[in-house]
């Protein structure tokens, strides 16, 4: 029998309320369990045969965001891991042992990543663990590795919140081969400081996504720029997933600051701010985002190549980086996955570098004893990767990493512009041109 109000079934109302809560949870977890392959091996880059290497393969486990909000980065990371494993295996493996990488999909969900590392360590008994994508996921994942005495060598967990977990402060098991993100914008701040006072931006806005990756470098830049006399007209943190960025972006545009430093995590956030700025006929003289513009063609496809001109982003690596290993990796990437060198984003290099550092540690310690590897990595002074030299501090931050600022320039080229005068740096486009597709 239908209810008294046929349009509104009370049972269905209750169900729909449950659905809202469930779906809200889904969204909050960045659609974690939406993946059908969560927790299941999604790929492995295995040795052609153990005979080729003369021993049991070295098994490596990693959780990556193959679906969900970080899927673009997670899939790029997977390519980087697989590319490294393929290269190593083609050269006979490490210590004569082939490498086998098992990747589990965490669907961009930290909870699923924790489960994945528990599976990799306690069920699969992998020899080593490689890190996931993003600081948000690396923090809780590192705790699992620490409890089991594993090193977690990673390339995308450079936030202070990753290094400062109680587990890492006790066990010192995290090793981030990339640039610590808090310092990413320092070259940009130094550039502003080098300008004559009359040429410096007078005002700045700092909209930030609520994310451990996005905020620290922007907040550090804000404090340093304020010390230089750059007046802050907007500094707010907004949720990582809002219905629309337009209100915040319009508010920034309304204040018309000379400089916008956007604490972003992805392309959609940057694209939304740029679109709103254009709609409001506001062109910041300088625009730099924590992440998003580093995604190569993914970024220009979303915002238009013309609009990208003048946009800056910090990073520790770029496709034409003058490093022989890096150039070889880019060449192999293009040969395997197609596209051009500019399509290779920094995630690939970060993942590849993780493998390189692990290989050097295994070789130096003569095996996969995680205790020895942790000790070795803290002491080593001559580690190298496709991103350049690597030297870890007591909490696993890479103190040897160089920070660069990149800029999209006319003609759709992506160039290193800062530090000024640094090898590879080209002239910076000091003022962002008007919006144009």
């Amino acid at each position, binding site marked *: 029998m239908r209810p008294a109000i046929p349009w509104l079934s009370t049972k269905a109302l209750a169900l729909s309320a449950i659905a809202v809560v469930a779906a809200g949870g889904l969204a909050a977890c960045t659609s974690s369990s939406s993946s059908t392959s969560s927790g299941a091996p999604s790929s492995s880059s295995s040795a052609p045969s153990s005979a080729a290497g003369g021993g049991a393969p070295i098994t490596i486990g990693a959780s990556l965001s193959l679906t969900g909000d970080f*899927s673009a980065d997670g899939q790029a990371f997977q390519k980087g891991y697989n590319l490294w494993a393929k290269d190593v295996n083609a050269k006979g493996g490490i210590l004569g042992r082939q490498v086998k990488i098992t990747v589990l999909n965490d669907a961009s969900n930290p909870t699923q990543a924790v489960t994945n590392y528990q599976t990799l360590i306690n069920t699969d008994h992998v020899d080593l663990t490689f890190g996931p994508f993003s600081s948000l996921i690396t923090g809780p994942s590192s705790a699992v590795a620490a409890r089991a005495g594993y090193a977690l060598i990673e390339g995308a967990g450079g936030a202070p919140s990753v290094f400062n977990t109680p587990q890492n402060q006790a066990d010192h098991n995290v090793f981030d081969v990339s640039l610590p993100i808090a310092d990413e914008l320092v070259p940009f701040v130094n550039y502003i400081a080098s300008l004559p006072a009359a040429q410096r931006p007078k005002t700045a806005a700092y909209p930030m996504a609520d994310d451990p990756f996005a905020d620290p470098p922007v907040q550090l830049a804000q404090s340093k720029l304020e010390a230089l006399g750059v007046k802050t007209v907007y500094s707010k943190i907004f949720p990582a997933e*809002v219905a629309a960025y337009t209100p915040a972006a319009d508010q920034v545009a309304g204040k018309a600051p000379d400089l916008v430093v956007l604490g972003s995590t992805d392309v*959609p956030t940057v694209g939304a701010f740029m679109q709103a700025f254009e709609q409001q006929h506001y062109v910041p003289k300088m625009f730099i985002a924590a992440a998003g513009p580093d995604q190569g063609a993914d970024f220009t*496809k979303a915002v238009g190549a013309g609009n990208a001109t003048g946009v800056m982003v910090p990073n520790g690596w770029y496709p034409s980086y003058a490093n022989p290993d890096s150039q070889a990796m880019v060449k192999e990437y293009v040969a395997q996955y197609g596209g051009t060198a500019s399509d290779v984003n920094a995630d690939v290099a970060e993942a590849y570098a993780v493998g390189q550092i692990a290989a050097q540690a295994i070789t130096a310690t003569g095996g996969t004893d995680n205790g020895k590897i942790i000790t070795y990595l803290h002491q080593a002074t001559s580690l190298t990767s496709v991103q350049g030299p690597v030297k870890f501090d007591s909490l696993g931050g890479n103190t040897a990493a160089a920070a660069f600022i990149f800029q999209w320039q006319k003609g759709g080229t992506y160039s290193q512009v800062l530090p000024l005068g640094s090898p590879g740096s080209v002239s910076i486009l000091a003022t962002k041109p008007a919006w144009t597709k």
Partner: protein
Amino acid sequence: MARELIHAIVDGILTGGVYALMAVGLTLIFGVLDIINIAQGVLVILGAYLSYSLSTRAHIDLFTGLLITIPVMFIIGVVIHWAFIRRLRGTERTSMTLLVTYAVALIIEGILYKAYGADDVQLQASYTTSSVHIFGFYLPWIFIYGFIVAVCLVVALYLLLYRTRLGRSVRATMQDENAARLVGIEVNRVAALTFGIGVAVTAVGGMFFGATNAFNPNSGYDLISRLLAIIILGGLGSIGGALAASVFMLTLESVVTIWQPTWAIAVFYAALVLVLLIRPTGFLGRKAVRAQ
């Protein structure tokens, strides 16, 4: 501050129009079939990708492309109903549809990943970044168009439901499925058509969403919780309510963003709870709505 407040309110109203375009299909399907279509968010993204393909590969304007994407999405909706929904029977039907439509969402998401990859894309046209200057404010054309289309769509669906033979069949089926059968209405056909229409309108919502946001195959999951909140607040099954709730919720969120953006999402859902405490049937969830 007053200027920022007015701007935020205008932003909220216009953005609400875009959300209404995505929510009306969901509420229509619920109103007729008594099911919660969890796949609606992913279907919005599918609609956005169809517009993207037509725009980038065939260079068809986004609005012109709707002439193609709407029928395609209608067919997809009918097929989904035929393949998954119509088979569900019995007392657990409503709850089972949650699982089934969730599975449909996963299938579509997987296909989209395979077809388009994980990279973000955005629909581009001259009117997606241009704006008009009115009373000292720049109002983006794409949001203005979205709001106008939302109002037109609500009116069109109202006319379809209350001024056509199909609409009478739909409403008869809603009121009493068995009685509708007895008077010769092909209930399964009506249900399939309604599901098809509910999915077809997401082609419009998808186009506007894709023109105002970069998206990837996963973006639908961020949408569905908001869309469900909107249709509950508007009154389940009420098309006009979906528009009113969209505008209310997005305006509220927009205004909160001026002061404290971190509270925007919390306020969005807190408003839902508060309104339901005062008015459990939502804005327009009344019997009177049906009696029009």
